[in-house]
């Protein structure tokens, strides 16, 4: 019986590329519907899917939202290697294999009635975006909402229109910075952590969600802690190589946990001691 279940979760289903959105030079968003055009199931913001480029390989990619027009899942992907390159080549109408959604999500309900700080680095804004959509849809149930977003260069910044909408229409404090820029860029330059002290929130009543490269998340946690947010109110989304995505193979083991099924979103104080171990 168990092996039948295993087979099912390991078997990718065909999904159709309804549209491809080009975001930046190396980043794109696939809009995915069922093969018959049907809208896919519900998901929890923060969860990921395993996307399979036929004959090439399978990679974990977070769901970055849902298309208002087709109802399809949005998956925002940065091309870094073999599989993401193959996904980048996909065109409208193409078919890929998909398993998911898997993993834990951002605990948005815990933030209700509180201030909420989103801290994103690079492609890390994509997994946070659906959580921002939920907050946007019930804006009056949150206090201050802050988005601190850092990227490598001005050209690599994602979702500009949406960031502007969050700022102008939904009263989100949106602060953006880049690591390096030429003179034509008149906005912030510096690391994302430098934005924390330029922001107003009540640290005793704030929940923070961080997503980005691990180094960036470590520095961000340190900065948020310094600003007064306790460790048990900070959540981070972890990344490790994955194979099965359902806790069978051990590929994504992180201390005693599996990132695929116990994460990718973890409360910081619960994994802090494993983050300090170099080999993990």
């Amino acid at each position, binding site marked *: 019986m168990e092996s039948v279940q295993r087979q099912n979760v390991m078997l990718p289903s065909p999904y159709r590329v309804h549209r491809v959105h080009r975001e930046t030079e190396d980043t794109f968003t696939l809009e995915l519907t069922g093969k018959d055009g049907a809208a896919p199931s519900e998901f929890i913001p923060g969860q990921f899917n395993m996307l399979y480029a036929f004959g090439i390989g399978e990679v974990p990619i977070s769901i970055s939202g849902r298309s208002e027009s087709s109802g399809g899942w949005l998956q925002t992907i940065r091309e870094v290697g073999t599989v993401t390159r193959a996904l980048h080549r996909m065109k409208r109408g193409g078919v890929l294999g998909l398993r998911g959604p898997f993993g834990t999500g951002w605990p948005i309900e815990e933030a209700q009635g509180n201030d909420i700080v989103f801290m994103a680095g690079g492609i890390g804004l994509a997994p946070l975006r659906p959580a921002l959509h939920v907050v946007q849809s019930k804006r009056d149930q949150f206090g201050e909402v802050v988005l601190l977003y850092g990227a490598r260069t001005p050209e690599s910044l994602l979702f500009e229109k949406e960031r502007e909408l969050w700022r102008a229409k939904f009263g989100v404090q949106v602060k953006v910075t880049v690591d390096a820029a030429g*003179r034509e860029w*008149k906005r912030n*330059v*510096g690391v994302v*952590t*430098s934005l924390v002290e330029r922001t107003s929130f009540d640290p005793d009543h704030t929940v923070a969600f961080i997503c980005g*490269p691990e180094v960036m998340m470590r520095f961000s946690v340190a900065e948020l802690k310094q600003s007064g947010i306790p460790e048990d109110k900070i959540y981070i989304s972890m990344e490790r190589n994955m194979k099965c995505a359902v806790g069978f193979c051990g590929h994504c083991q992180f201390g005693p946990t599996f990132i695929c099924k116990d994460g990718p979103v973890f409360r910081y104080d619960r994994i802090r001691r494993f983050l300090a171990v170099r080999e993990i």
Partner: protein
Amino acid sequence: METLEPILSKHPFFKGLDKAYLELVTGCAKNVRFDAGQFIFRQHEDADVFYIIRQGKVALELSPPGRAPVTLQTINEEEILGWAWLVPPYHWRCDAQALELTRAIAFDGKCLRNKCMEDHSLGFELLNRLLPVIGKRMEATQLQLMDVYGAKK
């Protein structure tokens, strides 16, 4: 005439500073403004001033010979601009350009430096406040050098 002392006493940089020292520092302070595009200081020039930005934004830039200028960091409201006035050889390490209309409080660093030589307790107080600023900038530079958003090597 209204002095800058009430403003300075509330600024985090001077928090907890002895009243006599605060008066002394206030005596070296004045309001200044810079238009968008104006250079506040240039690399290698004598560093005899430091600033608390009250409004606006300033870019710290490097202009390597034969290459386009690069912005290293921006300094925003309430932040400290300039630490080279207290660290030998007292020369600016980069250019600073106002990106928009910027209002600041400027301190006569040379005068303060001399006072710090005479009164080491004042020197200690100011260094104690400046070192975390330098430390944070160093940490930021390390992070930028790591190029964390680039491809994993």
